[in-house]
């Protein structure tokens, strides 16, 4: 009896701690979202009240959608994130396959060379990257951002994916070879579909920093046409700093896309991590 009681006690304590921390984690997000639906006066008078008929007001959202180029910024972020993610996953998987599948001279060295980028942040090369992009005429283009993010994402992608590809059975690949499949077909039709959980893990870890990056958009592509939503909302906050409704609405809108992407990937994420991708 004593044993079960202490077990219940412990589980209540665990829930209490986890719940407390969940509240701390979600409270600021909650504050933004509820206040974005309220009138200006209600925001100041009762910041913690949920929106209801008395204080309901969508003026923030209408301001954002009318004044800012929010749709353009959103599209830019989407383009950059999706394109970079595509190249990171494709190139990363190809390199990981070469490193994990074939024995060749320099294999280990090449693996170490590619893994170096996990430890050394790409930002330290900013000075030279900017010079290079200027001379290539790529400043203020989304291409510059895609190139930088692809390079930034590759090291971790190669590292995680090659750990994973080592677990794909050799028999399967050899059966493919006996059937006369080329090495390219083996990679694209046999191996890629099998490492999907690892691809999801890489996708989450690659996507979050790209979507949220402020540094490279600020330096490489600050023009009005190429602003990403992160940079755009930063500027928006500066311009409309007295218009709290608009700022809160802008922030709520900026949370939605990345939250949706995270929820889509998160199931695969845990499966990917626990299967030994990151150890």
């Amino acid at each position, binding site marked *: 009896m004593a044993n079960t009681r202490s077990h219940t006690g412990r*589980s209540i304590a*665990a*829930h209490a*701690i*986890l719940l407390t*921390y969940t509240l701390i*984690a*979600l409270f*600021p*997000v909650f*504050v933004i979202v509820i206040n974005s639906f309220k009138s200006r006066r209600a925001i100041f008078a009762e*910041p913690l009240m949920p929106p209801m008929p008395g204080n309901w007001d969508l003026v923030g959202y209408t301001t954002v959608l009318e004044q800012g180029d929010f749709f353009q910024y959103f599209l830019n972020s989407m383009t950059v994130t999706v394109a970079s993610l595509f190249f990171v996953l494709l*190139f990363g998987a*190809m*390199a990981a*396959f*070469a490193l994990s599948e*074939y024995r060749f001279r320099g294999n280990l060295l*090449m693996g170490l060379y*590619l893994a*170096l*980028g996990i*430890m*050394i*942040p*790409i*930002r*330290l*090369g*900013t*000075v*030279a*990257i900017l010079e*290079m992009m200027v001379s290539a005429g790529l400043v203020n283009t989304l291409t510059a951002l895609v*190139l930088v993010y*692809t*390079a*930034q994402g*590759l090291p971790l992608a*190669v590292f995680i994916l090659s750990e994973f590809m080592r677990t794909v059975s050799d028999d399967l690949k050899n059966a493919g070879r006996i059937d006369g499949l*080329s090495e*390219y077909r083996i990679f694209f039709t046999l191996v890629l579909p099998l490492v999907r959980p690892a691809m999801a893990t890489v996708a989450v870890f690659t996507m*979050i920093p790209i979507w*949220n990056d*402020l*540094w490279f958009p600020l330096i490489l592509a600050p023009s009005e046409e190429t602003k990403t939503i*992160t940079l755009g*909302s*930063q500027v928006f*906050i500066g311009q409309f700093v007295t218009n709290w409704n608009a700022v809160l609405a802008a*922030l709520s809108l*900026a949370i939605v896309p*990345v*939250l949706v992407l*995270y*929820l889509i990937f998160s199931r695969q994420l*845990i499966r990917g*991590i*626990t299967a030994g991708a*990151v150890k």
Partner: protein
Amino acid sequence: MASKRPIRWHIGVFLAPAVLVYTAIMIVPLFGTLNLSLYNLDGQNRIFVGLTNFVTLFGDPRWSDAFWNALWNNCWFFIIHMLVQNPIGILLAALLSSPRLRMAAFYRTAIFIPTILSFVIVGFVWKLILSPIWGIAPGMLDAVGLKFLFAPWLGKEEYALTTLALISVWQFVGIPMMLIYAALLSIPDDVIEAAEMDGLTGWSQFWKIKLPLILPSIGIISILTFVGNFNAFDLIYVAQGALAGPDFSTDILGTFLYRTFFGFQLQLGDPYMGSAIATAMFGIILLGVCIYLFGIQTRLRRYQF
């Protein structure tokens, strides 16, 4: 007899795109920056000055005061992360991984949500919450009778950096939690069962059995935290601006680099001193990584199952 093996072109094809992009955009610019730090302007021309930029950076009071200030602030930023973020992450992961815990998926997702938010949102929200005029924090403290505890935490020199570090901890605690959680789940059941047979349960089981097994993961998290912290910029920039106020008390190496390279207000940007700062940061990160790889990682005992 042994015919020469055919050249396996496909290996090159598989490797080429990744290696080319990575080398061109990451490695070459990195060395370009290291190289640029050895030059400076002589009137109009770029001339080779050797290590003079570093002598200026470390020794000339106009630069060195700001540099050592930024470096110390950065160290403090890192210390707070190690003391607060990682223990909380481990605690949460340990609780989450306990068997038969209900709603584990909900907690996991909710606690990870701040990590996916952008710095713009995080910086702004906390400024709103902590603002002495508008903020919610004074009102909430008032409601529980603790109003006297409130101070303008982001505006006072002595608190601002610690406050920002704690905000950063709040945002990123999900990452150590996730990685430790995964490491805890991968401990085989028979090890746990053997411990239970020996009468080890609960916290003593955690300290004596699980913690030694997840030490390598804690090591990796520490080094990732180190690299991330010494590369941080965004949170300070969105919360306090490029000047890292009040009075540079929240200036870290990232904001110092940004100000030096791109200039601010009346000061012109200086790519040469900027490169020197980037090189110094490179050295610091490399030193930290080497200390970890050779000093700590080799001493960690790994267990294979």
